[in-house]
């Protein structure tokens, strides 16, 4: 599923904050054959939100729904970051100057490169600004190739 809008569909899953709940969600992911490239767990006192970048977001979404899991699709941006000091600053600086607010983000450090997955208030504008400033962003197809 190639696209060049620079947006990646992330799945967000509601997890009750009880012992064994994350293991249960993980087992459902396993049963559905869903491969996660990166994930992050945001938590509150009584619940957590598992956010994951997966191989096949549309297919995974339907499988999880069919299993009765509360799941939501959200658009995020994967900013490719060189594995050198100052790389995060470069990307963050672009956002700062363009007035784009990062709602949350999480990083994945692969063999060849690192990816900073971010959720911003205006993803379309963010992609445009990043590209104008020469910041490399990941296309959804690249997830499947592996980085």
């Amino acid at each position: 599923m190639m696209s060049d809008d620079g947006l990646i569909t992330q799945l967000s899953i509601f997890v009750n904050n009880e012992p064994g709940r994350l293991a249960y969600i993980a087992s459902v992911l396993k049963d559905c054959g869903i491969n996660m490239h990166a994930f992050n767990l945001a938590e509150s006192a009584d619940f957590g939100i598992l956010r994951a970048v997966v191989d096949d977001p549309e297919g995974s979404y339907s499988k999880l729904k069919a299993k009765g899991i509360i799941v939501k699709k959200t658009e995020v941006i994967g900013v490719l970051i060189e594995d050198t000091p100052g790389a995060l600053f470069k990307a963050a600086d672009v956002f700062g100057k363009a007035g784009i607010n990062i709602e949350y983000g999480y990083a994945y450090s692969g063999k060849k490169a690192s990816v900073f997955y971010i959720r911003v208030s205006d993803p379309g504008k963010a992609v445009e600004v990043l590209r104008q400033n020469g910041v490399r962003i990941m296309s959804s197809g690249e997830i499947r190739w592996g980085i």
Partner: protein
Amino acid sequence: MFWNTKLECMPKEDLRSLQYRELKSLVNNLYSFNKFYHDRMKAQNVHPDDICSLSDASKLPFMYKQDLRDNYPTGMFTASNSEVVRYHVSSGTTGKPTLVGYTRNDLEYWTEALARSLTSVGIGNNDTMQISYGYGLFTGGLGLHYGAERVGATVLPAGTGSTERQIELIKDLDVTAIACTPSYLVHMGGVAKKMGIDFRRDTSLRKAVLGAEPWSESMRNHIESEMGIKAYDIYGTSEMAGPMFTECEERNGVHMAGDIVYCEIIDPDTGENLESGQKGELVVTMLKKEAMPMIRYRIRDITSIDEEECACGRTSPRISRISGRSDDMLIIRGINVFPSQIEYTLMQIPQLAGHYMIIVTREGALDRMVVQVEIKEDAFSDKVEDMNRLRAYVETQLKKYLNIAAEVELKAPGELPRFEGKAKRVVDKRVI
């Protein structure tokens, strides 16, 4: 010590004939002048002429809390606005409160009852009494306030909250007696300890009149051994007037002054009267009530009646400690909470799916209530901030309707138990 020796120690037989006379004239009056009770008697096919003895009271129809709700606000009143001098309000079950009204005479026998009660536990004009019940719509604060003033005690109207300040005042003003909920007194004990204050060593507080929530002998023992305060049980509901009756120095049941209230115990399922001494649901007939008569009102508290004359010399029947409820009402930090109130509140919130659980625990001395709610699928946001905002909103709504803080936990749809038949949505883990 008696406040009203003649009425408190009246021979049993005389007391019963007094009760009969009061009941008879009450029923005559209501049948003639009160449409609500007239219709209810008609429906049960009972006429005032059928009441020929005190035990004939069992022929009369019951009154229920639902009657108060159905006739909110003043449909049950038998006194005109010019005669009613006060209202108190308690929270209702479906967003609508229940209102009780008082004529000057109603306030008079309420205060008289409390003057007798306080005297019976040895509180009088040499005492300084702190009233740490809520003042305002709740009956506890103002009720005890006027009762304590009547016996000549110096009253400190502390109300609820600001615990450290309350403890300072107990110390500075040589407070000798207090009225509050038992759990609040235990809480005070814990706070005082942190402040380096020992009630026994540093204060003159020696007597406590405790009520508005269920408590036990083990709590009494705790209060007495840890704090050096003699604890007495007080009983009463807003439908009766408010807190009214206490144990005497013998502490062998709460004296229900016979000239003010006629008590029966019934089987909550069949409505049949039970023998003296048997455990069942308390039914009260308020013999002097003017603004809002209460005939065979089903309080829903489970207790038993002891008709034996008390060693203190009082002849009024005594009720044993309330051992439970015949409905699902919870008492949380002294506030009455019906699960239906919680349900009603949750149903008004479109993001919630309708399933809920209520978990009640006691941490230290204070009750904690957690309401678990299932969110609807489309209410799920992947931003923690949005979800926290939803939770805070549910908490605010509950606080608004229940007058008490509840913690809310958000759950995914399908997470909470489903019930076939009667739902058991309340898990009360308190050990009292």
